[in-house]
């Protein structure tokens, strides 16, 4: 017991330091302004955030054809667009995977999807890098503030990837409700498991 106490103190200190000394990770944090992009949609047209002047914001989701987690969330992403596009927050899906590594994520394969929202190819992977996306699905909620689109929530859609019926906390929808009411999201960053983005091999 005598030995345990200093150890548990150290554990606590380590735990504390892991929060305090958390290094700045690449990409956007909540509160950052999102820079616009111009990416090719599966219909061949180029899409920018600036195109839709009426949007109050965007649900930007990095996703793909191949990841089981992306597949598990596909119908939920479609439902999010159905529900929130009319409220001013449409979905923009971006596929960042290198088709050389993941052939199922080629532009041709992406075209088999028939979404009511853009499904964009991030060919250079620069947009995923700018956002700091690491996995699919990885979601960023943007809210228009004056002339800017401000990152207002980053993370998971909900707390149960396997079964939408077993979801207890709808992280994104809770955040959206607060943001649409003009408040900051009380839980503005969440973490989720996903497939690592298939980066181009150097």
């Amino acid at each position, binding site marked *: 017991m005598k*030995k*345990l106490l200093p*150890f548990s103190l*150290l*554990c606590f200190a*380590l735990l504390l330091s*892991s*929060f305090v000394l*958390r*290094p700045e*990770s690449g990409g956007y944090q909540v509160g950052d302004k999102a820079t616009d992009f111009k990416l090719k949609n599966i219909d061949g047209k180029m899409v920018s955030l600036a195109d839709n002047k009426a949007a109050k914001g965007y649900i930007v989701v990095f996703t793909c054809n191949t990841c*089981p987690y992306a597949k598990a969330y596909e119908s939920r992403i479609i439902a999010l667009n159905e529900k929130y596009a009319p409220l001013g927050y449409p979905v923009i899906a971006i596929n960042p995977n290198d088709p050389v590594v993941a052939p199922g994520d080629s532009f041709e394969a992406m075209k088999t999807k028939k979404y009511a929202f853009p499904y964009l190819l991030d060919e250079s992977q620069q947009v995923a890098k700018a956002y700091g996306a*690491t*996995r699919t699905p*990885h979601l960023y909620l943007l809210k228009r503030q004056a002339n800017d689109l401000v990152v207002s929530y980053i*993370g*998971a859609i909900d*707390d*149960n*990837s*396997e079964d939408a019926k*077993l979801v*207890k*906390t709808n*992280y994104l929808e809770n955040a959206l409700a607060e943001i649409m009411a003009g408040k900051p999201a009380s839980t503005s960053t*969440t*973490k*989720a*498991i*996903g*497939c*690592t*983005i298939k980066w181009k091999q150097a």
Partner: protein
Amino acid sequence: MLLGLGLLLALPGRSQQVAVIKFPELQKRLSRPTDTTYVVNFWATWCAPCVKELPNFEQVGTTYANQKVKVLLVSLDYASQLDKKVRPFVRQRALKSEVVLLNESDPNSWLEEVDAKWTGSIPFTLIVNNKTKQRATFERELSKAQLTAALQKFL
């Protein structure tokens, strides 16, 4: 004779049982004040880069069998896939490292506690020695050389 028969009978079933655990149990195991270096790899049968790097972890387990190194493979497959995917996979590959399945539905409730920097993509590897207070994490695929180099710093 009996022993031989017993061994023979045990042989087909020699592949390990995969324990299904909750996060507090994993946390408890990883916080024990032991001088054994734990190499903990978070993976899943559906994760191609994870499956690709698994042999490296198996090899490390064999190479360092005589040293205080323990390889723990934490599957993030859904618990519902235990008999359908995970156990057959472990059996087919004859995995020697201990495999557990972490049965937690909300990663947001535990990812941060494994590592504050972990954004949630896998493969993810944690090497930890509680005696020497050393710790290293990798949110990416590791080659055999990279894994060995990382582990050497602990030995």
